[in-house]
């Protein structure tokens, strides 16, 4: 099991594209692959390639300096669309720990936190400043999850992350364990439901 984290230092790459959806992050045709085979090679599979199927040399993630990237900075609406958690697996398996963008798909943001991946929300302006700082080349960056900031050289930008998700990543909480602590309360709810709204249970 992975452990939680509070700070991360890694290489940040600019991905100045709006609306990178989960179909792009993890194309559907690879989704029947068992996870233990690793999803890194599927990350942005088609977007990284030209029409002939070759890796496009100028796509940010294909540049040699981006090989060890662990932080992505993108434009708004990152991770919209399909609920496929495989999109997060592809990022995580490729070594990505944090994605910084002005907005995220709701389901994606939840999936990310469940896998220790930070989806950090910044303003449009700050995203623009971070992208500008990374325009010529990927650069080392520091993510401070507790303080809620990312620093690239002398540029420091504050980000937002839902408090529940922040704590989940820091503590590597597992929801099933948390919820099973309340099993008595759940059982009581179910019992009450059977008495007050029995129609809720499917007839067969």
């Amino acid at each position: 099991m992975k452990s939680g984290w509070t700070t991360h230092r890694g290489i940040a790459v600019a991905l100045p594209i709006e609306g990178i959806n989960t179909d792009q992050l993890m194309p559907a045709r690879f989704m029947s692959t068992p996870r233990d085979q690793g999803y890194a090679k599927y990350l942005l599979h088609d977007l990284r390639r030209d029409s002939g199927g070759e890796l496009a040399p100028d796509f940010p993630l294909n540049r040699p300096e981006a090989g060890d990237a662990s932080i992505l900075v993108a434009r708004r609406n990152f991770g919209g669309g399909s609920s496929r958690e495989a999109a997060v697996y592809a990022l995580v398996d490729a070594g990505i720990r944090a994605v910084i963008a002005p907005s995220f798909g709701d389901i994606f943001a939840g999936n990310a936190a469940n896998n220790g991946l930070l989806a950090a929300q910044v303003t449009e302006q700050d995203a623009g400043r971070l992208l500008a700082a990374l325009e010529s080349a990927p650069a080392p960056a520091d993510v401070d999850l507790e303080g809620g900031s990312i620093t690239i050289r002398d540029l420091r930008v504050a980000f937002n992350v839902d408090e529940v998700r922040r704590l989940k990543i820091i503590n590597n909480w597992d929801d099933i364990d948390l919820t099973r602590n309340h099993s008595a309360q759940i059982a009581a709810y179910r019992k009450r439901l059977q008495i007050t709204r029995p129609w809720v249970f499917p007839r067969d």
Partner: protein
Amino acid sequence: MSGQTLFDKLWASHAIRTEDDGTSLLWVDRHLLTEGSHHAFGKLAERGLELAEPSLTFAVADHYVPTRTQLKAQWNADSRRMIDTLERNAARHGLRHFGPADPRQGIAHVIGPEQGLTLPGLLIVCGDSHTSTHGAFGTLGLGIGATEVAHVMATQTIRVVRPKTLRIRFDGMLGPGVGAKDMALAWIAQIGADGARGHAIEYAGDAVTALSMEGRMTLCNLSIEGGARLGMVAPDAITIAYVEGRTYAPAGPHWDAAVREWTELRSDEDADFDAELVLQAGDIAPFVTWGTSPDDALPITACLPDPATLPADKAEKVREALDYMGLEAGRPLAGTPVDQVFIGSCANGRIEDLRLAARVLESRKACVPGLVSPGSSLVKAQAEAEGLDRVFREAGLEWAGSGCSMCVGMNGDIVAPGKRCAATSNRNFRGRQGPGARTHLMSPAMAAAAAVTGELTDARQLLEDRL
């Protein structure tokens, strides 16, 4: 104090507890599983856990189901493995399983309602974003990821951060030949693909209450394309009439109790929404998408955007989308030639959708190839009983089996690279229908019209005297 919204009421009735951090633990009434559930079953097995409520969990094969052959020997290896895995997991946990050979098989979001599994007042989850479809019944339909699926399997509950509320009101009535798909694309085009992010939508207004259940399902289906967490329509007489007598729906005294509750289930007059959007239904024309995001949508009467007239930040995205789609800036949308059509999916694969497409196609020929895949095997049987299959076949379209099919191409039904498809599905992302495929989203009437003329066409012209 102001009243409660429909959403507030449903949330309250499902909350088991609320944590200090604002997350609620909600009871899940129905859990639908598709082939993608293999990740979650794996997580469950890793921990040696059993399913908490097998009788509230239903397995459905849809994404990988081949629609062109029933013969398993002809399926591709992916389809076989994924469908077999689901069947094995369902058997192992004692779940009701709608497999490819089941006469009630279909897309999860079509058969849930069809079987009476979807009822007003419930909370339904599925590891699929279009679970929002079930909101048409006044139910909370939440799409979730694999970790959450495993959580529901183990506990029959879900932890959710409460979304904000958004009411989208359609005042007035739609014109002839305009439907729920056009309403959906209209609001998404207006506020953007992330415009409803973090919100639970309630659709309201005369044009919404006038919709059939099929129409309401289409409208709620596309909620996610505007970034919303879920979409809903308050239940009414139309809802209750649809549900009555379905296989898993309540009967006898339970039915009476349910109807009493459903009749009260709506937002209070004085309820406050966090946000509100109002559209005039009468102004909505048939919509078509031109780009690679669902908000790249325009009335069929409009011209394509021109990056030269847009601010720099918007121009780049438009240029890229036009480039991928192989379209020329500024040209009229109508008249764009298409290579093929696809009629089906959980957005528009229900009987009414097929009836409408057939109305356009009746005694006409399609001049491009096309695939018609009913949303379920029961929809297929119904369509055949009404002779709709004959209309499609005589027009020259292929009448296939039911499943997700060409909406996502996982079963091998794909659009070839560079080909342009007029589709009734809900996603026009790059490569969604196959690598390099170019998708235009539209209503079933519009897709049928495109089949007849071979180009994007205002379906109203072909529906004259036919409605």
